[in-house]
């Protein structure tokens, strides 16, 4: 069986769902950040797949993927930085402890 676009799309969909799930259920903030990373990487695969199957001349998808990677890195870095600041204040990385702002 040859790998087609659809397979990639399914993979991406699965990855995306995993990412969302991780985002929703994990209590550890680092895990949540990683889930975001999974989401972005799923999208990267999508771009790459589309570029590979549809846009051979310009490969804009790949370019896009690279942009995403760079920005994802920045985002995670920022996220971790914020997390550290948070940790300094509350000594916890459990998302349940960050619920002081509400209704």
């Amino acid at each position, binding site marked *: 069986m040859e790998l087609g676009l659809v397979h990639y799309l399914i993979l991406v969909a699965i990855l995306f769902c995993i990412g969302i799930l991780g985002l929703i259920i994990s209590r550890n903030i680092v895990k949540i950040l990683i889930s975001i990373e999974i989401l972005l990487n799923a999208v990267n695969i999508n771009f790459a797949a589309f570029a590979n199957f549809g846009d051979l001349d310009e490969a804009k*998808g790949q370019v896009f993927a690279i942009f995403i990677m760079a920005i994802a890195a920045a985002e995670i870095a920022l996220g971790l930085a914020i997390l550290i600041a*948070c940790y300094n204040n509350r000594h916890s990385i459990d998302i349940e402890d960050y619920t002081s702002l509400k209704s």
Partner: protein
Amino acid sequence: MDFLLDIKTAMLPEAIITFTILVCTVLCFMLKQEKQKIIYLISLLGLIISLTSINLLAANKIFTGFYNSFTSDFFSILMRFLILSGTLLVIIMTKDYSSKFKNRQGEFYLLMLIAALGALLLSGANDLIMIFVALEALSLSSYALSGFLKKDKSSNEAALKYLIFGGASSAIMLYGFSFLYGITGHTNLTEIFTYLANNNTDTMLNFTFFLIIAGFLFKVAAFPFQSWAPDVYEGAPVPVTAFLSTVSKVAGFAILIKFIGLAFNNVEIITVTLGLIALLSITIGNFMALNQMNIKRLMAYSSISQAGFVLIGFALLSYSGISGAIFYLISYLVASLGAWLAIIIFNTQTNKSLISDLNGIAYRNPYFATCFAFCLLSLAGIPVTVGFMAKFYLFHAIVQEGPAYLWLLILALLNTILSLFYYLKIIKAMFVCKQENESFKLNFDAGILNTSLVALTLVVVLLGVLVTPFIEIARDSALSIKLPVKQVGLSR
């Protein structure tokens, strides 16, 4: 040289801001902490120059440059004007507040300018990559800004929530982008629209549309991606909140408009979706605002509901609707900036942010209270303020679509009653309630903050009276975006 020409004709403000950012970065490293106040002045200067440079842009023709990834039309110029003036005011707001930033004042302005640059680019972006990058520039610096008070627990928490929510929604948006790219094979919006005009790809496109607007709905804090806003608005430093609820929203709307063009062959679906989202935003924002005791939180919910009103204009998918939305956006920006300015003046001097803290302030600081009241009344849509005109113009646009959109009108109208209730609650506290044991008097001198508050109030009233030019601006800018929408109701 092509590149430079592009900059001269289309991206002069952005270039100036970039230059300012560079200068500021350097100064950040060079200056001692006590002297970092200079950066405040420099960023103000940069913004003012950039604002004036907008005049140099060719307003009446559409210019596409920067490898087709940036379009400068009248609409984008208007949006950039709004963004720049908004940022200018936000930075003015920080004059006294920045003492809370201790030794990191320079960074603050730097981040603010970067966010503004992202917003500027977003308002003219014409390429998916450009959109993404600009959006993230805006978002990332916003995350950092909301957590800027490092020692403050709620500021941290706000930043964390904002980042997680933002990351998720931008991922969803990117997912949509990838499909859009997959369907059309292009990342340039112009090309995408050309492709879509010639090919019929219904269902998938709808799905894509939903995914994409998720990111923008997050940015404008509309339902269902609104729940971050109250927490972040409450936790973040007040100027940042002001920035988020004004400039950031303007940018979000500016880019959202471009995508409603995706509604090629299935106008109804977009209208119904956006209409539903708009109404739900308005309703939920209003309902939640009713019981709020904290001004910042109340303003957050109010901003959710106000975003809903702008979305109504989009939902109509007509030029009159969009021009209504643009006018509404202008009115919202002015009034809400005024309100935030007032809140910041109050908050900086008293460190309080409950509604009951405002009790009886009108008789100690009549001008402050009057200005604040005018801004709130404008948000509520009471004459003679710009908010009243904006609401009227928007509702007028709804009716132009014919009786089929009456449900939208009726529900929106009913919601304005709710909103009046909580805006009046603040006004009541200021004018009616008796002051409690501890009374304080704000220092309301001729400082720049107070002057700007008075100036904004004057604008709120003047725009409510001399309304014709602004309606025409809104209409021209709506017409300048070439969108595949109905041309109803724009005759002279």
